[in-house]
């Protein structure tokens, strides 16, 4: 398993395949934060967080799902959705459809979102995880559709919603279809809000653009991983419009300081925190189940004598 290349997003293969190819010289990895050499088993056990400097390296989508869902409960949904090329988009004779095929091959998954149902400490969840390795997590019709269906499934099946986001922005190859995913997913989240179901939005490193400005920002609780880069315009857009933001700006810590993010949670504590939050935000459900809500009536607890 070539971890370093994978971490840089150059290449990604499913865990199983990686395991087969694992070679002796791969058991040590250099931390991207502090350059320390880390023993792979410890590194994996610590969810790709450097035990020395705390740098959070990217998780594969299956590791991410495993880190959140109860073992064996994840059932993938909408795996069969595939992008089309509605605009016949080519860049110097390079077709978008070819680009998609390459992305699928290199990422090991067929879209920038993997979605499904699972449970977390026994509570039913609807889960979507974004995949940076697939076209930089760029959001097109299918990614938007999968997010939207994940939200709708939460509504329809009374599940809590969890979305782990990382995205370079909107997928330009699908033009305005991509932009419309912001509206589509926000509309679904508005429905979830009206249903009073909880949504925990988790920000992994590098979350930009349309994702940030729709589902990422609309969590009841928003959690970021330490050091995660998050913002509106991604670095390549900023470069194109010739804007340089100070280093610290588009960071989880900056967003926490400015009131946008509820919590920064190191990955090893993430699952427990999400579980506790879900317990709180769904506690009224169990209360309701335990005893049917009594009819509301107007009474005054305190004596009116004491009042005047």
């Amino acid at each position, binding site marked *: 398993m070539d971890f370093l290349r994978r971490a840089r997003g150059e290449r990604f293969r499913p865990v199983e395949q990686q395991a087969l190819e694992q070679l002796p010289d791969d058991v040590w990895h250099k931390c991207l934060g502090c350059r320390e050499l880390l023993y792979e088993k410890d590194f994996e056990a610590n969810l790709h967080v450097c035990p020395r400097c705390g740098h959070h390296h990217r998780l594969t989508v299956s590791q991410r799902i495993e880190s959140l869902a109860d073992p064996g409960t994840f059932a993938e949904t909408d795996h069969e*959705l595939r992008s*089309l090329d509605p605009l016949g988009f080519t860049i110097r004779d390079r077709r978008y459809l070819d680009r998609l095929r390459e992305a699928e091959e290199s990422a090991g998954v067929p879209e920038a979102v993997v979605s499904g149902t699972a449970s977390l400490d026994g509570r039913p969840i609807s889960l979507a995880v974004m995949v940076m390795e697939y076209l930089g997590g760029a959001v097109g019709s299918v990614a938007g559709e999968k997010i939207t*269906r994940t939200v709708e499934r939460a509504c329809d099946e009374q599940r809590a919603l969890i979305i782990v986001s990382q995205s370079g922005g909107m997928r330009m190859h699908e*033009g*305005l*279809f991509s932009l419309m995913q912001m509206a589509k997913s926000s509309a679904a989240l508005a429905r979830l809000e009206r249903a009073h179901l909880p949504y925990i939005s988790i920000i992994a490193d590098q979350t930009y653009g349309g994702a940030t400005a*729709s589902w990422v920002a609309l969590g009841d609780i928003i959690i970021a991983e330490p050091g995660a880069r998050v913002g509106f315009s991604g670095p*390549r857009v900023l470069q194109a419009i010739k804007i340089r933001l100070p280093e610290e700006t588009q960071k989880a810590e900056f967003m926490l300081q*400015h009131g946008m993010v509820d919590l920064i949670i190191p990955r090893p504590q993430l699952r427990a925190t999400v579980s506790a939050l879900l317990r709180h935000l769904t506690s009224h459900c169990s209360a309701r189940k335990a005893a049917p809500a009594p009819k509301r009536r107007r009474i005054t607890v305190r004596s009116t004598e004491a009042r005047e």
Partner: protein
Amino acid sequence: MNRHVTELEFERGLADIRTALERLEKAEAKGGPDVVAQANKVRASYDQALTEIYRDLTPWQRVLISRHPQRPRFLDYVATLFPDFIELHGDRHFGDDGAIVGGLATFADRSVMLVGEQKGRSTKENITRNFGMPHPEGYRKAERLMRTAGKFDLPIISFIDTSGASALQDDEARGVSWAIAECLKTQANLHVPIIAVVISEGMSGGAIAIAMGNRVLMLEHAVYSVIAPEACASQLWRDVSAAPEAAAAMQVSASQLLQLGLIDRVIPEPIGGAHRDPEVAAQYVQAALREEFSLLANEGLDWTTHRYEHYRHLGRMELLMDGSQTTGNGRH
């Protein structure tokens, strides 16, 4: 028609005719029937040339038109179509953004809430309006006014004209993404009808933020895009000068987007573009809005559900079946 507008690169052919015409028109007043006849002839050939140029514009040319400095802005339409407009200021949290203007007005005998992105014209106004790039407080003002419209059952008309939301450090600090997302969610929740009109540039998240209409209209030469063509070119072509190709590839023009089912109506512009005849352009916008209004007013719709279904179905995809690919779509 105002022929004294800044001519764009692809209109270069007009200059000679226009100069000739200007000379003739000066003479026309005191000249004989000959001069008048000749002026008429040149006028006709000017109109002919203009018509030909505008008959088959490329998407990139429309991008240039949509950014034309004399193109009518939101407040120009307001002045003509909504003479009783009362501007309402502020987001009640932080500031009053000049790049988004909103308020109450009457249209077709109904009270409406207007919200629009506003670019400036003078340098001074451009600073006040931040070149039409809204700050977070602009979106929060828009959201507040939309909620007010919801509370009082007023239809909303939004006007989109932006090269994108402002994206500097202060905008990040005040949560520009959060402000846009809240705007979208609020529109999704509203039970009043929303008509969105892309009048010039509709770029990226800064545009869709206030454009979540039950009906989405576009002026003929307006553009609406997931990202500015320059930024697209710089990222996908690795060459900013490929912006025209990027604009073409992304299909940013009104007719293309109508064809793709991404917008609902194209509002025609006078020959030579809205900036050559803002009055006529405003009349066209008025006529289109009146039609939309009579459509909306006669229906006792659940606008929230209508809007949900409107956006729910946007996206093109296929379903992979048994290993073989079958073309389909994303509906369920």
